[in-house]
């Protein structure tokens, strides 16, 4: 797609005249009647009515669309669905991940408030594609008000014969159940979510076996994020080509950017993927607050490594570009920070979060997150020493890849990269050494990680 208005490097094409599809501007779209007036559940009807559309065709369309999960990991959705084994006598489950607890992320809540039926239709289409019997929507407990709103709509769906036995008179039956969490970040991790759904403590499970083989109650299960599922009706309505040609080639589609922090106009915005970070800050959000300098960006929730302003130059919001820049797309919950931000204080708060939320099953994570917090706190309070920075890198090495779930990695990344990218600020806070040495050699011969990046 040729950029017309946007800056040349943007992959989002003519984003200024982009028409929203996840949150189209329609009053009261969250009401079933309004959603149906605007063609809602039409995709479901078409799929169920047309004897030529087999469940596998829906999966193929999703695969062709290039849709990648919006819950953080960015895995191909069509591929994930195709991991489900052939139907046997076991029940099959779908879990819709509406736990949304990654700090900096608030887009699923807006989608559930303003267009819940797009999610429900996506759930039903995914259910048809994978021959699902029951879908559990796991909503974080804090979203109590929104759960009540969704319960009302779900009841209407049952009454209208859109959920339950023989949906729209077809031989496809599926239940949807809302499940309210109770305040545990880790339950967003897919296997922890399954444990929680089974009525247990939310301890993540070892993989393999993967949920597609052995998920809920030992049966085949797929887990998808709210926004991922909401994209499915759009893929069918507008066609996989449309989806694949929207935004960044390797990571296409519409996406909800949840932008917060030191910008003039924070909020949830819908645009194609591949938006230039500079366009999002300057044009979409009206620039930095009080005309301050842009300093750092956390592009997709607290687990994604923060980027310095210079690393964001020319970078677009899609996995490839962000990976090159040194971070990840995550949830596209973007925290924008200005020049006055103290990155040591930032890291202190982030490590506190992970210390608080570790489920405690794995020693490197349970102990490591506590150490990270205590050491960063010590540095922040001016009691740290230069070698503490090495100790932090060492700790990160001992946590990453050595635990049951990815939480420990998610806790270590911000530490590793914040120090590497804002090292001066950390050095300025540690106690002066008796033997002053420059930053590049202070890590010593047995340092576990380079003192600075590249």
């Amino acid at each position, binding site marked *: 797609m040729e950029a017309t208005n946007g800056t040349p490097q943007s992959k989002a094409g003519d984003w200024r005249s982009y028409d929203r599809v996840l949150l189209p*501007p329609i009053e009261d779209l969250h009401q079933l009647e309004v959603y149906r007036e605007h063609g809602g559940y039409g995709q479901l009807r078409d799929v169920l009515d047309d004897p030529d559309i087999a469940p596998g065709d829906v999966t193929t369309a999703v695969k062709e669309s290039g849709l990648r999960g919006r819950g953080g990991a960015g895995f191909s959705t069509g591929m994930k669905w195709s991991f489900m084994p052939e139907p046997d006598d076991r029940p099959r489950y779908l879990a819709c991940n509406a736990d949304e607890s990654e*700090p900096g992320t608030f887009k699923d809540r807006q989608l559930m408030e303003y267009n819940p039926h797009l999610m429900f239709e996506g759930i039903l289409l995914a259910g048809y594609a994978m021959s699902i019997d029951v879908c559990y929507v796991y909503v974080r407990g804090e979203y109590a008000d929104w759960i009540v709103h969704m319960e009302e709509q779900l009841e209407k769906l049952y009454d209208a014969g859109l959920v339950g036995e023989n949906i729209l008179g077809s031989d496809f039956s599926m239940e949807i159940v809302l*499940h309210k969490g109770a305040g545990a970040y880790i339950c967003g991790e897919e296997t922890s979510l399954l444990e929680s759904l089974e009525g247990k403590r939310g301890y993540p499970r070892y993989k393999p076996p993967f949920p597609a083989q052995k998920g809920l*109650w030992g049966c085949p299960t797929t887990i998808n994020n709210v926004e991922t599922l909401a994209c499915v009706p759009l893929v069918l309505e507008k066609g996989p080509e449309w989806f694949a040609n929207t935004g960044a080639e390797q990571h296409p589609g519409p996406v909800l950017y949840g932008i917060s*922090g030191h910008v003039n106009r924070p*909020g949830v915005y819908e645009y194609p993927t591949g938006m230039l970070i500079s366009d999002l800050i300057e044009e979409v959000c009206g620039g930095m607050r009080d005309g301050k300098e842009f300093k750092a960006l956390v592009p997709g929730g607290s687990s994604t490594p923060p980027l310095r302003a210079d690393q964001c130059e020319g970078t677009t919001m899609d996995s490839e570009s962000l990976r090159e820049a040194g971070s990840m797309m995550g949830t596209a919950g973007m925290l924008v920070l200005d020049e006055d*931000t103290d990155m040591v204080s930032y890291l202190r708060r982030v490590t506190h979060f992970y210390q608080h939320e570790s489920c405690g099953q794995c020693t490197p994570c349970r102990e490591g997150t506590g150490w990270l917090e205590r050491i960063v706190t010590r540095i922040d309070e001016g009691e740290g020493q230069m070698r503490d920075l090495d100790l932090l890198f060492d700790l990160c090495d001992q946590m990453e890849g050595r635990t049951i779930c990815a939480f420990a990695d998610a806790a270590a990344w911000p530490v590793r990269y914040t120090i590497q990218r804002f090292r001066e600020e950390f050095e300025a806070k540690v106690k002066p050494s008796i033997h002053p040495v420059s930053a590049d050699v202070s890590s010593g011969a047995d340092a576990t990680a380079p003192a600075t990046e590249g």
Partner: protein
Amino acid sequence: MSGFDIKRPIVELPDQDPEQQIPDEELVWTDAEKKKIEIWKDQYPEPEAAIMKVLWLAQEKYDYLPPEVIRFCADTLDMDHARAYGVATFYTQYYKEEEGTFVLDVCTCFTCQFTGGYDILHHLEEKLGIHAGETTDDGMFTLQSVECLGCCGSAPMMQITNGVYCHNLTTEKVDAIIDGLENGEVPEFTSVTLPQDEDEMGGNRRSDVAKTETYQTQPRAEHTE
């Protein structure tokens, strides 16, 4: 490794045999509640999975979950007491101790941290004369500093007693909320308008909510801890 003063938190073991708070005769479900529980049990292949919903129901009914209430919930679903305790203690929103009439959960996680979350927290600490984690003497308010509530665009923000969200907080706004709560007035649900809706639809899209707010430029944080 001299010089490292890594302090271990002292773990206080809970009282192994606490005095019963809710008398046995009050530990019964009404017919309406029983009906709900039956529906929940049918939603899952194993009735135990309904424990989270049953604990929520019990918390609404008894305000908090002392051990006898957790045991009562376990018995309702024919599950081991220990497993139900395990669940109740894993999730932070289940209150294991009696809390104030209103629990003020102020978000101080990173967006809120840099947009005044701690300023709001400290203002409340001073106003109520308690520290985060404590309850006022009159039992009206419990103050907590919590992790991201998924509303970072309208930071700083807080949630009241696992319920309503209050957005774009300022000290004046917080004062008004506290005054209201003291008179038993809980703020009503507020819908936060999408910026693109303001441009394209002239405001909020929901006609069924009375109160709306917009995402606002976030304040400057005086304190970040």
